[in-house]
């Protein structure tokens, strides 16, 4: 599975995977396709995958333009390094795929958009109980030392999506993307069966919502009160939302096969907004409007007040793709 010598071709596809602002789970999820990885390496050579093999940015910069056929880019854009590599990869690969919730909608790291850069630095470098930073050192893009100038990537004031910095051909949502969907997407992209390019077309997911895939019974009763997982044991096979657990199913795109719900855990919304919506949080607000059993206005306000952290919950994986994108 070694890198090709530059310019040499052996008829195999050249694929890459890059890790930006994300947890690393996406890299692992690509391996989740299991033995099919053997089929993949029969048709493709890996020419960049920092997680599993030692590739230098210099190697990539030396590839001719359009050398790589497919590159999976996981993670959002938090620093100038990540943007630089995104631009480099856009130049070096024919098909750029945003892989996972962070690349598609900012993901968990984008929740930091609720805070400014100064507030984040304050917590990370000064306030955390485990921090001992008496000299109040903070990272800075350029630093003078006797030997010369040291350079660090710039920490951006907000988390961006991949498609905010470069044109993206396809996007595979999910935290992480589900293995079967990944395999279908790889096959589709490799065979050229996916329709259009350069338009961040979502692949590896379906057009409906998680509720459509969920096998739990909907009894069509309204929510009496909100409860959380630690407060009671939900009845098996009955819709969690109807039982009062805040499940993002109605505002989340399908594709995962409702995996979490099979384990009695509410959907967290990692596949992002459904096909016909762009802003996942307000989509969930709209859905809840019809689901609460609130006969009076006072009761409605009470029930709304019971929801713990609605904004963080509704935008857990998609704050960067929401309309308002950040907090003031």
């Amino acid at each position, binding site marked *: 599975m070694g890198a090709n010598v530059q310019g040499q071709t052996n008829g195999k596809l050249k694929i890459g995977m890059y890790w930006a602002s994300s947890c690393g789970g996406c890299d692992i999820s690509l391996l989740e396709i299991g033995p099919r990885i053997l089929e993949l390496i029969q048709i493709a050579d890996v020419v960049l995958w920092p997680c599993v093999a030692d590739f230098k940015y210099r190697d990539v910069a030396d590839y001719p333009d359009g050398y790589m056929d497919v590159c999976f880019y996981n993670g959002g854009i938090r620093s100038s390094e990540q943007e630089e590599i995104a631009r480099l990869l856009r130049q070096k690969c024919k098909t750029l795929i945003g892989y996972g919730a962070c690349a598609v909608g900012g993901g968990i790291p984008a929740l930091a958009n609720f805070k400014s850069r100064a507030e984040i630095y304050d917590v990370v470098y000064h306030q955390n109980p485990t921090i001992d930073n008496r000299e109040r050192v903070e990272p800075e893009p350029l630093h003078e030392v006797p030997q010369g100038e040291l350079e660090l990537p710039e920490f951006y004031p907000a988390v961006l999506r991949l498609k905010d910095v470069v044109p993206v051909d396809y996007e595979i949502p999910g935290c992480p993307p589900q293995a079967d969907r990944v395999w279908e997407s790889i096959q589709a992209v490799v065979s050229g069966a996916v329709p259009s390019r350069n338009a961040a077309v979502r692949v590896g997911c379906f057009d409906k919502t998680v509720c459509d895939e969920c096998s739990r019974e909907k009894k069509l009763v309204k929510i009496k009160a909100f409860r959380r997982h630690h407060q009671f044991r939900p009845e098996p096979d009955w819709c969690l939302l109807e039982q009062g657990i805040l499940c993002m199913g109605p505002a989340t795109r399908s594709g995962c096969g409702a995996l979490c719900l099979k384990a009695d855990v509410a959907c967290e919304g990692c596949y992002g907004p459904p096909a016909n919506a762009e802003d996942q949080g307000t989509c969930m607000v*709209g859905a809840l409007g019809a689901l*609460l059993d609130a006969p009076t206005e006072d009761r409605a306000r009470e029930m709304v007040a019971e929801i713990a952290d609605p904004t963080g919950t509704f935008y857990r994986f998609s704050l960067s793709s929401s309309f308002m994108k950040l907090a003031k």
Partner: protein
Amino acid sequence: MTETVATVQTPQMTPAVWEPRIIGFLCYWCSYTGADSAGTARMKYPANVDIIKVMCSGRIDPELIATAFASGADGVMVLGCHIGDCHYISGNHKTMVRMPLMRRILEDLGVEPERFRHEWVSAAEGEKFSKLVTEITEQVRELGPLNWPQLMRERGVGHGTDLRPWGE
């Protein structure tokens, strides 16, 4: 990061004379008729609310409220029929749940609560309508411009395709 979006200056938002720009979503059956009755009764109220007529306050997707703020509105008001008066029987019951929830989200995002107003106005309450418009205009004027597009530009987000500032 260096790409910029079009400026959001509209004739109303020139730096010299800033006027609050407020989007009002009004239901056709009660609140819009209420606004109409304020007009026919020649009541005076500020001209800062741009009214968008919808068939029912239950048709106001919360997404529209986020879009309004993200596009540069300084305030948003949502007016519907009183509970029990909905032309479609239960449309405003959905509004009744959505709007307090939307208010919590806007507060979390740092939008001052005075910028978002949700009230019931019947067809006969022209006076209430003019009072509400006066109130929200004054409150927003006191708070100053919200200017979300500029905030997004300052923090380097929103130069993708989904920002649609007014005056573009």
